[in-house]
């Protein structure tokens, strides 16, 4: 579409594409976010504790609505003049981010209670970021992709340094800002290169609208092996690799994960990573599919190095937030393996979605326990603090064991099924060396996940503290009924999804 020669007719036809109902969930989230701020002003202070509940129940309602209209009439179509593409996968990611956001808000109620901070803005930003994430997963145009991504990233700058009295939180925010800026620059450079080369009038099927995924794909398939396009693709992939924390772009992960408030760490670890993979899947499987001979090796190298680095680096960690950050790097490696397999053999796509779902369920179980074990200094969460958890709070210990077991990929938990599906996809795609590396990665990962379980469950003798000495670990937070219910459900979901995948298994595999 040539905007230089706009006329009323064109504008009208473009506006006819704007099906506002198609982005109802995103708009509702934005309105809900605004409502929270209004409530903070309007309600007297003693009622402020109810505002997070408004956020949580509002989102639960949206989630139910999303499932009721899981196949809207716009499914498979493009709206907003080709900016958005509505697909089954997009619907899945919408639900995924909503669930993440609900759980982050719930963790927020646990973690923020230990700080003297303004609270409501936290939920406000989480909701806005979630809306942007949902748009990101459905974007069909580089402009929307970039704008949504930046909205997410700016929101995270604030969230990561939300505990502004804590120097580690501030440091994490700064690191995330600088690294995020670098990754945005790489991404933007790649986009511009692709846009530029696809507009070259000397090439076949050149287009003035090279930001649009469909047009770009048509151009790429007509011009195989264009070196400028290849550089652009690699730069775009590098920009996304920052978001998912893949090697060698994982450098920010441990510090930012440690410094960020625990709910934000969870949000980064699950939602931000998943958003990166949703974008990666769209790009690699759809837009860059004519260049599969380039993307598959690049993804393969990323997956291999990420698996090795993540697992080895996590081995030596004692701070659980750094540990889970680096173990998240290794999960990015498994997911990259799945994406690489899907690029060869599209039936592996379901494996990535299943893996993400299992990862969400298990991660939030672990983060939920972390939020309860953490003290006032949120960055100081050591493995030693978990000593005796099995006796003092068997419930939290059980949830932690199930969550970590699922992350480690121990059958019969959901994480194992995710790894299984990825392995099957990768073997079908013939990526044998990567599968071998992934297997080694699983074995290594057992050491640190199991070490954590060991710290929580197995009794170890420790010297009794001398009279009057300060406690060496923060006091445990009692589990409220809502957090207990959520954690119990998450643990149960990990177990049930491991045994019985049912309709979800069919949905994921049926493509």
């Amino acid at each position, binding site marked *: 579409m040539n905007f230089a020669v706009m006329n009323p007719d064109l504008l009208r036809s473009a506006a006819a594409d704007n099906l506002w109902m198609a982005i109802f969930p995103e708009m509702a989230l934005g309105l809900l976010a605004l409502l929270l701020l209004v409530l903070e002003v309007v309600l007297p202070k003693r009622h402020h504790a109810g505002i997070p509940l408004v956020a949580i129940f509002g989102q639960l309602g949206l989630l139910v609505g999303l499932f009721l209209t899981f196949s809207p009439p716009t499914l498979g179509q493009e709206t907003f003049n080709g900016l958005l593409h509505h697909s089954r996968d997009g619907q899945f990611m919408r639900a995924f981010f909503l669930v993440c956001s609900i759980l982050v808000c719930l963790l927020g109620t646990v973690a923020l209670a230990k700080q003297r901070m303004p609270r409501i803005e936290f939920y406000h930003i989480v909701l806005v970021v979630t809306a942007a994430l949902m748009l990101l997963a459905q974007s069909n145009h580089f402009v929307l992709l970039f704008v949504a991504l930046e909205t997410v990233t700016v929101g995270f700058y604030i969230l990561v340094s939300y505990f502004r009295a804590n120097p580690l939180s501030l440091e994490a925010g700064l690191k995330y800002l600088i690294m995020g800026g670098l990754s945005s620059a790489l991404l933007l450079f790649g986009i511009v290169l692709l846009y530029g080369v696809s507009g070259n009038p000397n090439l076949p099927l050149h287009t003035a609208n090279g930001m649009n995924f469909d047009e770009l794909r048509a151009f790429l398939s007509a011009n195989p092996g264009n070196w400028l396009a290849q550089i652009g693709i690699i730069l775009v992939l590098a920009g996304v690799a920052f978001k998912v924390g893949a090697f060698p772009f994982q450098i920010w992960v441990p510090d930012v994960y440690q410094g960020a408030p625990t709910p934000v760490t969870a949000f980064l670890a699950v939602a931000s990573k998943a958003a990166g993979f949703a974008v990666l899947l769209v790009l690699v499987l759809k837009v860059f599919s004519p260049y599969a001979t380039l993307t598959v090796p690049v993804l393969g190298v990323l997956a291999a190095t990420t698996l090795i680095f993540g697992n080895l680096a996590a081995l030596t960690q004692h701070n659980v937030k750094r540990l889970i950050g680096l173990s998240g790097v290794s999960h990015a490696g498994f997911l990259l393996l799945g994406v690489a397999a899907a690029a060869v053999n599209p039936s592996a796509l379901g494996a990535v979605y299943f893996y993400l779902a299992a990862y969400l369920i298990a991660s939030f179980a672990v983060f939920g326990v972390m939020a309860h074990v953490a003290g006032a200094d949120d960055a100081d969460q050591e493995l030693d603090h978990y000593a005796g958890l099995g006796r003092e709070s068997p419930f939290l210990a059980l949830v932690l064991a199930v969550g970590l077991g699922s992350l480690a990929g121990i059958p019969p938990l959901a994480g194992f099924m995710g790894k299984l599906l990825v*392995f099957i996809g990768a073997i079908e795609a013939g990526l044998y060396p990567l599968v071998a590396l992934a297997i080694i990665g699983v*074995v290594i990962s057992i050491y640190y996940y199991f070490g954590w379980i060991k710290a929580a469950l197995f009794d170890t003798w420790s010297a009794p503290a001398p009279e009057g000495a300060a406690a060496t670990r923060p006091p445990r937070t009692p589990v409220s009924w809502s957090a207990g219910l959520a954690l119990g459900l998450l643990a149960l979901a990990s177990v049930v999804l491991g045994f019985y995948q049912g309709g979800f298994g069919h949905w994921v595999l049926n493509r």
Partner: protein
Amino acid sequence: MSQLPFDPLLAAIAAPLVVALAIALGLPKRFSVKLAYAGFTVPALLALHCWYHFPADAAGGYAFVTQYDTGLTLLGISLKLGLNGVSLPLFVMAGIVGLAAGLYAIQSSAERLKLYLMLLLIMHGGLMGVFASVDVFFFYFFHELALIPTFIMVGIWGGRDRHYAAMKLTIYLTLGAMLSLAGLIAIYVQSGAQSFDLVELRRALTAQPLALGLQKYLFGLLLFGFGILVSLWPFHTWAPLGYGAAPSSAAMLHAGVLKKFGLYGFVQIALPLLPQGAPAWTPLLAWLALGNIVIIGLITIAQRDLKQMVGYASVMHVGYGFLGVACLSALGAGGVVLFMVAHGLTVALLFLLATSVHHRTGTFDMQEMGGLAQKAPVLAAFFLTAMLASIGLPGPGLLNFWGELTIFMAVYNHAGWMVVPAVLGVVISAIYGLRAVGRIFYGQPTDAFLAHQQNHPVADLRWSERVPVLILLVTLIALGLWPRAISEPLNATLQAVYPAVEAAATRLAP
């Protein structure tokens, strides 16, 4: 066929798991223990029921077959249960050893008994599932389900070095499990059957066998995967350490039943599906098996710690199983199955009695015991019987004898000279076994033991301990007297599957 209004196999798997879930959801202790009795007894009864009703005309196929959709049918994974001549004896053995281990655990007054019983029930459910699965994926899945509680039980209730033992066990067994998983997935992908169903896989691979090189490669993966899981020399170091540290019921179930997974995998899956890949590896396998028998046998003689000795002995005897597999014949495979049943019952018995000895002497160090037979004659009699069975002497160990004899015959047909070191293993077993009996039960009590008796008067075996012992011992002796109960269905199944293995073995013999 079964006349029950429900699926006996699913019920046998589900009963312990449901009880475990009920305990996890916070059932009070009184009810937990009562319900645990049911959780351990139901599988054994259902297993006996299936055995009694096993149709004679199954002829190599599966009986009691049922199939459930768990959501992965598009990948060809579904919970398909059934028993054939190979899995039936092991299914029954799992039920009986599980019952004995469960009864022993309930009376053991372990700390945090509820959690202990819950984990043991999960393990038991997994074990029943391993041998009832026709679907290769669920075969693996149930194995892992049974494996996980072992790690936790060693870590919480274990003895000396329990944290190190738990970690080592976990890492070794995960490696073995991942290698086997990779091998099984590769077979699934390469077969083109689009199904993990063993029957389908066998059909597809009989119609169109894999290329020779690929078969060799995949068999190698399974060899090392299963080998690590079954403590093949030199990948065995986790086993004695783990069993030494594990609480007795966990050791009974793991060493007795769970470890049979790998050998069973060879007999039921690896050899029938990859008949041409096997001959390339069997010379190596035979040598490693001799390593189990001779080298670990000699190490066993050197043990002072009773539980470590039983652990090493179980690792040593597994060598006979590998030797039977390496013969690549129906005779060898049949011997392996007989041997597995005998070994499972015997090892469980020995672990149980070793713990009972420990309760009376306060130590596992055999040099600090002596003369226990005067105080506990029943325990001494049972222990001697179990040890004789473990050695394989006809009499109490008639079933072990049949198993080993069959394997020796197969070995003789395969490579005659190997019988010599294999039979040497029997002599080695006799040395450490009888020496242990002598040190513990006869002679004069050592000073250390006398000092211990001052504070802890020694009583003979209580009835709560005798019942599990009798369950295992009676089964062992009855099967030894009437091995046809196992061998008839077994023979029918092997006759249907193994001619192809034998043909490939003779054709490709190096």
